[in-house]
């Protein structure tokens, strides 16, 4: 991928994504962490556009930014008396060490491998994706929809309060 614009875009997006990801880590306020997370998601969506996967990018923004972060915000607001300081447990240091080791391995693999790449982007349209999802991958697709339904029902069941359960038992 050559081109001045693409390069600039890549570096800006990489900076935004990683700095925002770091912000999630270091931010002392849980709400701020969520806002950083949103920024990171948007950065990843930008990467998808750069990789000419517009549909996935838009799905990323709709689902991650529009739905999941909103859910997280809701969860934060619904737990008002829990601590909001976004602090670490005693496992922070081992966890970070593990992450750094993993990062080292990943970076070694990434840079040591001779990747066979195509130069021109394959022409992938949304239509192709549709055909792939409802053709080749129709079984996983259906299973995913079942999974979503199960998650929906499960989430509703989990958050029902005792009063509501009592009401249903009476009815």
């Amino acid at each position: 991928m050559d081109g001045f614009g693409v390069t600039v875009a890549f570096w800006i997006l990489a900076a935004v994504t990683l700095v925002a990801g770091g912000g999630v880590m270091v931010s002392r306020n849980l709400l701020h962490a969520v806002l950083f997370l949103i920024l990171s998601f948007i950065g990843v969506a930008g990467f998808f556009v750069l990789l000419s996967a517009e549909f996935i990018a838009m799905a990323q923004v709709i689902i991650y930014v529009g739905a999941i972060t909103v859910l997280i915000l809701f969860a934060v607001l619904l737990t008002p008396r829990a601590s909001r300081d976004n602090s670490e447990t005693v496992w922070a240091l081992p966890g970070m060490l593990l992450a750094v080791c993993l990062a080292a391995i990943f970076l070694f693999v990434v840079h040591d491998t001779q990747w066979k790449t195509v130069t021109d982007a394959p022409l992938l349209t949304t239509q192709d994706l549709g055909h792939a999802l409802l053709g080749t991958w129709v079984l996983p697709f259906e299973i995913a929809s079942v999974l979503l339904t199960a998650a929906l029902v499960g989430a509703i069941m989990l958050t029902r309060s005792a009063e509501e359960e009592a009401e249903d038992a009476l009815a």
Partner: protein
Amino acid sequence: MTTFLATDNWYDLRDLANLSREILEAADKILPFGVVYVLAAVIGFVASFLIFVLPSQLFVGVYGERKLIGRIQSRYGPNRVGPFGLLQPIADAIKLMQKEALTPTRSDRLVMYVAPIFFVAPAVLLFAVIPFGPNMVFADIPVSLMYFLAISSLPVLANFMAGWSANNKYSLFGAIRIVAMTISYETPLVMSLLGAVVISSTLSLQGMVLWADEYKIWLGLVQPLALVIYFICVSAELNRTPTDIAEAESEIVAGYLTEYSGMKWGLFYGMDIGYALAASAFAATVFLGGWTLFGLEKWVPPWIIFIGKTHLFYALFIWTRGTLPRLRSDQLMAFAWKFLLPLALFNLFIVVTERMIWSEEGYDKAYIYLFAIFNILVSGLLVFAWARFNGYRPDDVPTRPRLVKEARGYVPLGENE
């Protein structure tokens, strides 16, 4: 798309893209690499500002809204500043800039400052995919409908940030309400748009306009239920009056905007209009045929047709704002989940069936008119049937009280004079 136009000449102002292209090509020869992108952005911005934003936001969004609501409320509306009060929006803006932008002491200052910016940016981005004319679309990406939905799901986060950071209970109420409402209304909104996508088999807004031009019918006529659901959902997400529970003035003062003042508030206010205009432009594109008007676009500049449609749709927002009372938040939620979502699903089911029939008949043009008539009838029927099913009994509500001749203490129900 040149078939729509007689010429590609720069002086053919029926499509301003010609002029823009000529300027850019000329500039590309003399300017160093890269500057032409900046120039393109500037030209696009200035042009859109002159032909769309200024007339729409200031003179339809602010002045027109106030004037029209004034007429609805049997008063004059603005008529002091400038001829017919036309300069009132500008005077308002100057007043807003002079006001002090207060920040409460214990607020989250950073988030409070960022929120208006985060609110403005998507509003500007939204117009990038709206086709103003055959070539007048800034970013003609194949998934522009998805793009529009994705970007329009961002401002709710700005609203939340505004409400949460102000450290005010009314603001927090507004923030929670708008987040809950957006989650609820996004679902029927997407479901209703899916119907339009299925019938026109494209995710591109320009493609939908071309579809409408090809079949000489608006998608709003083929999908009347989707249009109605879209209108309701979008007015809920934009906090227009029947559903403006997030900034319900009579309940929670101004909702998430309670602590904002000055131009920070002005940004929210102006961009609320911006979002409403974007939603109107989107509806005009998807449901009302965009810049086409059954052949008239060959003589009248298409962008004028498009802007006219947008403003007409925007007038609907003003009308509902001037007429309807506000729903309670739980009623609004129940309306989304119990009424709009099932209707949208029914609609989707009908559309998919129609699409299958249509594809087996080889996409015959006559069928689409048949579907339109069928859908209009079935939509009306569905709405009434589902309302009935949900327990809507308008006749049970008495409009007149009981009348008694003499004062005599408690009169039990049924004992009437």
